[in-house]
């Protein structure tokens, strides 16, 4: 899980072009949106692309989005659960 979260942080910084953020500065449980990392709705779409591109995961139910993308940890848990199912 730690390795996956570290990889995710690097991928988020690259995919979302967060040039003033270092991957290691993102907390495992830090909220990704609003008061946390400050991501917006376009970033949310980029995160969906990230999951599809890097992990071959499509989000079937858009209503799951806020739960999956709450933090790096929730993203990692979702990826792990999805990969276990396959």
């Amino acid at each position, binding site marked *: 899980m730690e390795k996956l979260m570290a990889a995710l942080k690097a991928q988020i910084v690259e995919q*979302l*072009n*967060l*040039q*003033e*953020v270092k991957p290691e500065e993102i907390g495992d449980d830090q909220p990704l949106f609003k008061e946390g990392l*400050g991501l917006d709705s*376009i*970033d949310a*779409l*980029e995160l969906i*692309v990230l999951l*599809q*591109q890097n992990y071959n995961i499509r989000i079937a139910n858009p209503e799951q989005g806020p739960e999956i993308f709450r933090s790096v940890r929730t993203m990692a848990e979702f990826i792990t659960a999805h990969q276990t199912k396959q």
Partner: protein
Amino acid sequence: MGEVSITASCIIRQHRIYRNDELLWEASQDLNLQDFLRAAYDRFSGQYPKFHKMDHLCKLGWLAAEVLLKEPLDYPPAEVGLILANKSASLDTDLRYYDTVKEFPSPALFVYTLPNIVMGEISIRHGFKGENAFFTSDHFDTELVMSYVQQLFDENAIGAALCGWVEVMNEQYEVILHLVEKENKL
């Protein structure tokens, strides 16, 4: 009715930035456009991470506004208009976006596939809520733009306007941005 006049200007071309005809800063000609824009951001702004997500057209217009509006304008947000023009519209970004469509269409690029987005980025930064328009033509049509601006002033729709040319295609770019106000304001 009152005559309008240009009260300040910013020009960005050939990796040089001018304010009111004074050369403020010059970057190495060896830099590509992306690196030049980053260096200019570091020199004139900073503290606005959303800049890095913008396309080249928005970065150029946004930077010019940043240099031009070093001192905040003394007008209510709804009274500042934006009237811009260029030759290539958003084609520079359209083509980049088209490249991504073949694999994973990029939402971050898609939102910049309209030329008027640059006015949105400037408005968000400075809180402007006035009239805006973006014209596309081979050359800057001074008569059209100035008559449009004059009409907005005559109708009291705006008290000031940023107006000018924001062009980019591949690595070729030019920005000429003016602050236009009524003469009797001075």
